[in-house]
């Protein structure tokens, strides 16, 4: 188990390294040489003089060769900003003040803030949205999938297939706009936009229910299909027949014997789809005016706020990698065969 864990963590670190490199190449050489945009110029404000650009360049460490910059970016990501950079960016301020200005992901061009503090400000919105969506998604898809598998080719099964197809092809933002139009505007059941923190649970749920439902439905559609086919497979296994032969009740057979085994690939897929969920969250946040990470990323990218955009991409990649490791651990606990592999 320990070896399995170490191997997965090393693999995850490698993926994060590749993402950091990709982001660095995009916002370093590609931005500079392909699009002829210099970050120092962006940071220096409107119509800067060459001296100003040079000063900003030195301030941000952009005058150094790329490999030095990349090495420092990695070091900062792991260990936090160095004392030397702290002195350069926020001279004369206390450590706490400097933390607000400079973090592991650098500092924002558009706002006088560290990218870290921006991410932590906006992350709760995305976390609430995706958590609620994931919960709804599993609660919708698993029961429907199980019932479809128990009664294949029934009317229920056929209806659920139509629901799956529509859910798969309906863009989440268009569905979101339609839902806003009918449920929020016409019927007035939900607010048109906005977010309330969890400190007020009723309002929190009231504001998130519709966006989370829209986000969940798209994934639920695919998972109905997966649950159904997995359940059909496990229901025809020998151990299910054995369980029936030994006199286990039908509910027990379905839940304890068939579903537990069908769950493995579902958990794996769930881990892999977290990236898609974050992508869907961007579209939902923009559509519903929820100021989460995705919304922040779009804002930052529109303003060419390079460190913030890069920080969010990195943060999400780390999030996905960690989630995948957790999923693998859950799978390994559920199924001893995976550990021994």
């Amino acid at each position: 188990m320990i070896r399995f864990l170490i191997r997965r963590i090393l693999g995850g670190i490698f993926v994060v390294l590749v993402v950091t490199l990709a982001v660095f190449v995009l916002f370093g050489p590609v931005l500079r040489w392909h699009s002829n945009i210099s970050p120092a110029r962006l940071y220096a404000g409107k119509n800067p003089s060459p001296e100003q650009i040079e000063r900003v360049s030195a301030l941000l460490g952009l005058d150094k060769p790329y490999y030095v910059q990349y090495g420092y970016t990695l070091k900062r990501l792991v260990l936090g900003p160095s004392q030397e950079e702290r002195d350069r960016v926020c001279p004369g301020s206390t450590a706490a003040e400097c933390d607000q200005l400079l973090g592991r992901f650098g500092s924002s061009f558009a706002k006088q803030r560290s990218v870290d503090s921006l991410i932590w400000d906006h992350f709760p919105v995305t976390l609430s949205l995706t958590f609620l969506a994931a919960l709804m998604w599993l609660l919708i898809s698993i029961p429907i999938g199980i019932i479809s598998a128990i009664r294949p080719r029934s009317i229920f099964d056929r209806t659920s297939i139509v629901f799956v197809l529509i859910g798969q092809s309906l863009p989440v933002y268009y569905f979101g706009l339609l839902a806003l139009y009918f449920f929020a505007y016409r019927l007035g059941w939900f607010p048109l936009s906005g977010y309330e923190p969890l400190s007020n649970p009723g309002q929190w749920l009231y504001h998130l229910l519709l966006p989370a439902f829209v986000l969940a439905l798209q994934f639920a559609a695919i998972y109905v299909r997966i649950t159904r086919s997995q359940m059909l497979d496990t229901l025809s296994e020998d151990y299910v027949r054995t369980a029936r032969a030994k006199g286990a009740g039908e509910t027990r057979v379905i839940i304890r014997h068939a579903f537990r085994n069908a769950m493995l690939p579902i958990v794996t897929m769930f881990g892999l789809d977290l990236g898609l969920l974050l992508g869907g969250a961007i579209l939902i946040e923009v559509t519903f005016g929820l100021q989460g990470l995705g919304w922040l990323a779009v804002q930052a990218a529109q303003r060419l706020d390079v460190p913030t955009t890069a920080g969010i991409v990195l943060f999400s990649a780390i999030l996905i990698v960690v989630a995948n490791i957790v999923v693998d651990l859950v799978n390994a606990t559920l199924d001893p065969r995976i550990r021994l592999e």
Partner: protein
Amino acid sequence: MSTVEQFEDMKTEAMVVARTPRQLAFARLRRDYVALASLAFIVLLVLFALAGPLFESWTGHPVNKSNSTGVDDYTLLPVGPLHGCVNGLASVGERACFVLGASNNLGYDMLVQLSFGARTSLIIGIVATILTMVVALLLGVIAGYVGGWTDTVIARLMDIVAAFPFLLFAIAASVAFGASLWFVILIIAFFSWFYPGRIFRGEVLSLRNREFVTAARMLGASNSRIVFRHLMPQLIGPLTVYASLSVAGAIAAEAALSYLGFGLPLEIPSWGRMISDAVPGGLYINAPFLMVFPGTLLVVTVLAFNLLGDGLRDALDPRGGTIL
């Protein structure tokens, strides 16, 4: 009756015809009305996209051109469907008729924008799919056939690309590369190849050790002959299925990027951007057709390519049942 006569009799009663798997697949496809309807819709969509210049001259509204007649003087909202179509036909010179209304608050003609948007979607869907399939075939077949370290490296590469958050990364990349048609095609292909690639790799992996490959090798066939003459033809089935699904995916991905305002430059019409045009200031509340026309077209198009892919999968499945 002699045995021979009996046999002759049977032959006339039930003609047994030998049919190749491909003929069987076509026969199954011909009976799949959902897949046929999807195909018919796709053909209509291509015609609709080609008719763009016709719509331009017929309505007198060039693509990407704002029309003062397309915005209501009092409400400042884009005009609705059939606006000016009764009186407008009589007007001299430029016809004022907006068959499907205007598409944004600059008074672009919805019909013209939809038609040129269909071009964008189809071009991106098809070109991105060709690129995706070439890369997926190349890497999938190499990984599956060569095996060993090559396989490990390619399989890890697939895992890494799969772990990237596509939309977020595409936004970041569009900042760095700037907006262009090729950028959108390449970024979509870059994030799509791993999925069919895994399928092709798995197929080749299972075919590699089958008897017909061993037989070919024993007869002295070279690796390239085995790959191109013996393995590749087996991949045509999954290739067509995933190509159809990939077109749907690429069209949806472009629309999502354009909806967020990244990827395509403003002068290229896009359904995704048309939907996003309905959002600022809650325009869609007062003029829902702004999002419903491009939205519905997008949904039906993606659905059609998905259904066609599903239909092809069923038709090419040898367990698909007998066709009389």
